[in-house]
């Protein structure tokens, strides 16, 4: 395929925006692989994005994330849905092997009922190494889908590890999925995943113990709420106070209510002027790109040699890594001036 920059034939980005799903899929590959073509497309698409509601869905493996995502998609595609049927995109992330780089991307298994619907676009993504890069790739892919006309984008994270907190932090709304049998009150007060939740979903509500688990979560997540105002006044971060909702992705119970709650949040985030998540997302993207640019710059011709020598000096403990970093940064400035 040859997309001439002169605009003679439409670019991948233009074709993706006009509803060409094949072009959209190709573009997502370019973005995921961080090619120059992907970058070029993002430059064109970024100003056109920023309208979609990005929902992160995270939780332990086996808590029912994929089935819940499939349920949310069904609900959003229902013809008698309160807000009408709308296009939905899903980005489903599964882990890459740290040894071979290979991955099994299995989230589609639960979502194949939507395969015939061209307004449902599901894309699997392998985590490919560290979490920071993943968050960057995910936001970039979401921007492409956003600009291509998907108002609701569900990002299903890896079921385990640190990366889901990062990916969740760049979503407008973060859902943390729990299953009834997944822990006692102590689990609910531990630091980590539950803290990033805007909505905690106790899934598998068809199973015994779900009501009790939800009640326990509610009780524990509201502890200290009366001091929130004092914390804000004192300049301390205010803990999130997530809603706790019950769903059964199996029977569909609670899923319409969950989508309605998401839609309420979407209109609220859009209307609020100080949108913290948009800023956080911008920061994640920008710092990721800066780090990537810096790494590329340090590997390029004139500086590469200096970098090699510095690396060897640090490895031999002749130079400490902090001084080494400062020296390299200074060297970059010198090279740029020369």
């Amino acid at each position, binding site marked *: 395929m040859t997309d001439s920059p002169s605009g003679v034939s439409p670019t991948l980005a233009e074709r993706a925006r006009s509803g060409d799903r094949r072009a959209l899929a190709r573009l997502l590959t370019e973005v995921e692989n961080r090619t120059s073509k992907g970058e070029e497309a993002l430059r064109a698409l970024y100003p056109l994005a920023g309208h979609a509601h990005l929902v992160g869905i995270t939780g332990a493996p086996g808590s029912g994330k994929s089935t819940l995502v499939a349920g949310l998609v069904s609900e959003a595609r229902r013809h008698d849905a309160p807000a009408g049927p709308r296009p939905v995109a899903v980005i489903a992330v599964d882990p890459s092997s740290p040894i071979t*780089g*290979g991955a099994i*991307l*299995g989230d589609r*298994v639960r979502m194949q009922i939507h*395969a015939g619907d061209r307004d449902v676009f599901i*894309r*699997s993504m392998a985590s490919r*190494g560290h979490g920071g890069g993943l968050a960057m790739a995910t936001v970039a892919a979401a921007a492409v889908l956003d600009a291509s006309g998907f108002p609701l984008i569900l990002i299903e994270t890896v079921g385990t590890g640190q990366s889901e907190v990062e990916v969740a932090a760049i979503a407008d709304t973060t859902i943390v999925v729990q299953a009834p049998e997944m822990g006692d009150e102590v689990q609910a007060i531990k630091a980590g995943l539950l803290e990033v939740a805007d909505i905690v979903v106790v899934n598998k509500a068809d199973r015994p113990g779900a009501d009790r688990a939800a009640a326990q979560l509610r009780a524990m997540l509201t502890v200290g709420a009366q001091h929130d105002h004092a914390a804000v006044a004192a300049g301390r971060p205010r803990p999130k106070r997530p809603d706790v909702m019950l769903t059964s992705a199996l029977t569909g119970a609670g899923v319409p209510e969950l989508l309605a709650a998401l839609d309420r949040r979407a209109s609220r985030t859009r209307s609020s002027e100080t949108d913290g998540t948009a800023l956080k997302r911008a920061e994640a993207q920008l710092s990721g790109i800066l780090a990537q640019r810096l790494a590329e710059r340090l590997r390029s011709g004139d500086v590469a040699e200096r970098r090699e020598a510095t690396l060897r000096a640090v490895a031999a403990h002749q130079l400490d890594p902090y001084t080494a970093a400062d020296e390299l940064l200074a060297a970059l400035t010198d090279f740029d001036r020369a």
Partner: protein
Amino acid sequence: MTDTATHTTARPIKVLIAKPGLDGHDRGAKVLARGLRDEGFEVIYTGLRQTPEMIVSAALQEDVDVVGLSILSGAHMTLLPKITAGLRDQGMDDVLVTAGGIIPDDDIPALEQAGIARVFGPGTTIREVSDFIRASVHRREE
């Protein structure tokens, strides 16, 4: 795999493993998926009882390099050509399509005619499959 620099050349090959038709189990497909994972491929697995339309749609959305079809039911002469035709209709004639499962030798020429690049029979090793994929994937450098 490092994730820091731009690695346009070393990106993993994406493979869709799909089971068309009404097979009762997918042990073989899962073993293959797992084996290909260990060979460094990114493997998308869609589960049992997939229609040709579902498989084509998944291949399109995922922008895969390879579609591996596993079929035991005997419906391969009906289903597999439908899938290759569907891929062609979507402009995905550059995707490598392979098949495996229970497929009589006599049927292989017709399947190859229909666009199946290779039929792997029982006893095929994971290594044979992965070597074939690596050697045949049409790199879509632009």
